[in-house]
């Protein structure tokens, strides 16, 4: 196990992403954050907060649970079903520029599910993808627009993102199987 990102590095990464988002999106009032449960949600909130610190503008933030859209849900019906949590998107995504946020980008299958789910809520003008860590090994043609850290990994490794809101501390670590 090795720590690849500490709290300080994480906060600087998120601040940089906030600046990149402001720079690339004129008309910031059209933006909306949607965090993918579980850890995409606090990351989305933190970036929204960082943007508010930059230009005093409040970007609405929602949370999305993709369980019901997973492509592996009913394929091997063994063991109990994954727990479904609430999706709460308290604003209309129609014509918004949506920033979809997750902690780790890996196969891309979660993002595929999230895109399907989002489309059920309306027709956003665009969807951009924000991830804290991109660990590679994509199985679908999906790419992030904002990346906190590119992290080369092997398939046998696992990447754990820990956040204060959920895990009591901020850090990213790699574990060897």
């Amino acid at each position, binding site marked *: 196990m090795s720590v690849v990102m500490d709290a300080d590095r994480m906060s600087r990464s998120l601040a940089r992403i906030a600046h990149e988002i402001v720079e690339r999106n004129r008309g910031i009032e059209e933006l909306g954050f949607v965090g993918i449960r579980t850890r995409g949600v606090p990351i989305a909130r933190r970036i929204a907060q960082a943007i508010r610190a930059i230009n005093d503008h409040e970007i609405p933030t929602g949370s999305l*649970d993709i369980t*019901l*859209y997973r492509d592996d*849900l*009913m394929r*091997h*019906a*063994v*063991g*109990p*079903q994954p*727990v*479904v*949590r*609430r*999706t*709460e998107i308290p604003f209309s995504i129609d014509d918004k520029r949506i920033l979809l946020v997750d902690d780790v980008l890996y196969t891309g299958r979660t993002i595929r599910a999230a895109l*399907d*789910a989002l489309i*059920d*809520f*309306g027709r956003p003008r665009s969807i951009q993808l924000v991830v804290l860590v991109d660990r590679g090994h994509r199985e679908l043609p999906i790419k992030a627009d904002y990346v906190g850290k590119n992290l080369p990994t092997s398939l046998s490794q696992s990447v754990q993102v820990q956040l204060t809101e959920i895990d009591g501390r901020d850090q990213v670590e790699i574990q060897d199987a």
Partner: protein
Amino acid sequence: MKKDLLSIADLTSEEIYLVLDTAEAMREIGQRPIKKVPTLRGKTVVNLFYEPSTRTRTSFEIAEKRLSADTLNIAVATSSVLKGETLVDTAMNIEAMAPDMIVVRHASSGACHLLAEICKSRIINAGDGMHEHPTQALLDAFTIREHKKRIDGLKVTIVGDLLHSRVLRSNVLLLTKLGADVWLSGPPTMIPAGIERLGVRVTTSVDEAIAGADVIMMLRIQQERMQGAFFPSAREYFHVFGMTADRVARAKDDVIIMHPGPMNRGVEIASDVADGPYSVILEQVANGVAVRMAVLYLLAGGQEGD
């Protein structure tokens, strides 16, 4: 979860809370512009109803459709049952077409257990005779928890036809399992012998049962299951056991009034109570869809021992 949902007795309290928590998530789907998720795509659900039903059948069908299952309804009035086919034969024939789940309502207690033993499809009990109606008890618990934020320690009073009610049995099993203080009241002719062994208090005085109640649940007088006279007249029943505004005043200030439907207005419940500020009767119906979506989703997964 087990293969089938036949009885509340088969569920642990953790499983009950899992259903309720999953239903919380499912409810949001009904508020979207597109009220559908792809979760049960390619699954076939048969609704096999041997008894009339509006609420339960519609509720299951909406729940199935919101989860993208293929659904079909077999209403006995238009089926081969009228030509003398037995329940088992009908079930085996449906089973031969390989559905994934069968939702069953039948007038005989235990009909769902029988089908669960012979069918590979998952069986969901949508009411079997005077035995159980587990999804009703789950949606009642969901509605109670939404209003009271808990179930443990609440005084829940159930009034009416205790003898013929499958809703009663499922609710008593569920509410006592989750730690509610359950009181039952009804005419002595309609109190099943030994019901107090389920851990409930029983009294023929409605006023005593209602005093300080957090929840009042009314049960329908089920004329269709009655053989013989259980009380002199509907008018007298209303006078002694009917839920009126005066009676409701004996309960807690924030009491909620529930009824599984269909209501006999002016028999077990006064119209002004049914439509009044304490009534959550239509919320129960709305919550039924979310709870049934949760049950369908959870049963569609793997089962113990797979």
